[in-house]
């Protein structure tokens, strides 16, 4: 194999020879490909210096061909929504183990499309829509691409740079995401110390009981994130507003619970419409100090 990887003219011939030998030795095609992969990889790496092959055959350059992995027909498919802003564009997640890619023909992949796909397709996979992460110790391809079937927002596979790169924020040990907290932490002296969730919940419960008993709910506050809305904020919102019943509660970027633009709602104008249809039907949209294209890209385009 080490020899066959070096000459372009004879590569296919040699592979064919090897396959004939393998077949006569009773090796299945699948096992043969597996053996070739293992042997070939070792051979290639053995001849590698700085990651480029030291191969001198052929007139090719030293630039590697960009590729993406294609989800196989049995990939796990899950719907999701972009969690970066309140517009909530639709996306689809595809998961499959590394090494079990689908093919470029429609019948060979989970997207049901032939590659290359056409302009304005919702099925193209940008390299940044893909990631390889470990799931239960298994290297797994995770791809998050726009949902081409959405009926209200990001129709036809439109996507922002934020939603298009959702898979890039998955945890990996070897990039910036390794900074992510793995456990709750408690501030002891000058240090933050990792603790288990059970302990964290118990500590919060004990201190809350003490504060509520001694100072009342006025002394118990909650500052929480609010995007992704009701589904993901339900537990914290219910705890703060129903169970504890504190007025000291603030979502997102606000110091307290109030309008985005004080006074505007009182005058009959909603600063933050609850329905996309309102945006589409509006005769005049006034924005100040913000680029609508930058901050709510998809809504602007639609």
């Amino acid at each position: 194999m080490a020899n066959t990887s070096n000459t372009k003219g004879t590569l296919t011939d040699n592979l064919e020879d090897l396959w004939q030998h393998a077949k006569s030795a009773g090796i299945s095609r699948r096992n043969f490909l597996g053996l070739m992969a293992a042997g070939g990889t070792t051979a290639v790496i053995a001849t590698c210096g700085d990651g480029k092959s030291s191969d001198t055959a052929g007139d090719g350059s030293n630039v590697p061909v960009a590729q993406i992995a294609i989800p196989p027909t049995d990939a796990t498919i899950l719907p999701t929504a972009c969690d970066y802003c309140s517009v909530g564009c639709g996306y689809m997640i595809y998961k499959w183990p590394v090494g079990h890619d689908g093919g470029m023909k429609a019948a060979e992949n989970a997207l049901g499309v032939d590659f290359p796909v056409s302009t304005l397709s919702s099925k193209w996979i940008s390299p940044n829509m893909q990631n390889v992460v470990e799931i239960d110790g298994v290297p797994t391809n995770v791809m998050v691409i726009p949902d081409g079937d959405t009926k209200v927002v990001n129709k036809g596979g439109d996507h922002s740079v934020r939603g298009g790169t959702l898979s890039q924020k998955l945890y990996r040990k070897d990039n910036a995401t390794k900074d992510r907290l793995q456990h709750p932490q408690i501030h002891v002296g000058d240090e933050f110390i990792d603790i288990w969730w059970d302990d964290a919940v118990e500590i919060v419960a004990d201190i809350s009981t003490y504060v509520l008993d001694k100072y009342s709910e006025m002394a118990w506050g909650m500052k929480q994130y609010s995007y992704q809305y009701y589904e993901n904020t339900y537990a914290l919102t219910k705890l703060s507003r129903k169970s504890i019943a504190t007025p000291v509660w603030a979502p997102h970027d606000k110091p307290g619970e109030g309008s985005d633009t004080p006074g505007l709602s009182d005058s009959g104008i909603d600063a933050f419409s609850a329905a996309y249809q309102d945006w589409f039907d509006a005769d005049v949209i006034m924005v100040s100090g913000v680029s609508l294209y930058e901050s709510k890209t998809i809504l602007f385009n639609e």
Partner: protein
Amino acid sequence: MTTKTEASRREFLQKAGIAGALAVGIYAFPAGKQIVEAVAPGVQRVTRSYPKVKIARLSALEEGVPFDFLYPLLSHNNFAVKLGKAAVGGVGDDKDVVAFSYFCSHMGCPLNEQYKHKHSMMGPCPCHFSTFDLSKAGTLILGQATQSLPQIVLEVDGSDLLAVGVSGLVYGYADNVTGGTPVKPLGGE
């Protein structure tokens, strides 16, 4: 997403076993060189290199005027342009000759006629308004594309301008050299 590495890992062979990937690489592209890329710790991918193709005489390029060419497939529309200021990946005496794909890396709309010489900028794309800085490897200035505009890697051979590769994946493709007719390589049969 990928970074080149020389390190091999035994666990890769045990865990990943990219049988399919390697086999496809060999069968589909007998020509060119093999290159190994790391896609994650312990996970590698074998790919090939691009052909070298002559696209123009350097002297034929006029500052600020895009020159159209096809590479590495006849279905890939690209342009070369002399920016008039040094650029990342620029070649020629002033290091200001660069080349890029015409397909917007957001959703593939054609960027023809959108070059703005004053800002070395391609765009805004007529579909969703993405803009790209041609002096900085096609990086996104503003807009929706999730990767830079794919840059055609150039070399100069005497007075000839050669295309020798593509940095980035061209819109629509799963692989820049599969799914179309290759252009004729330099000195190719």
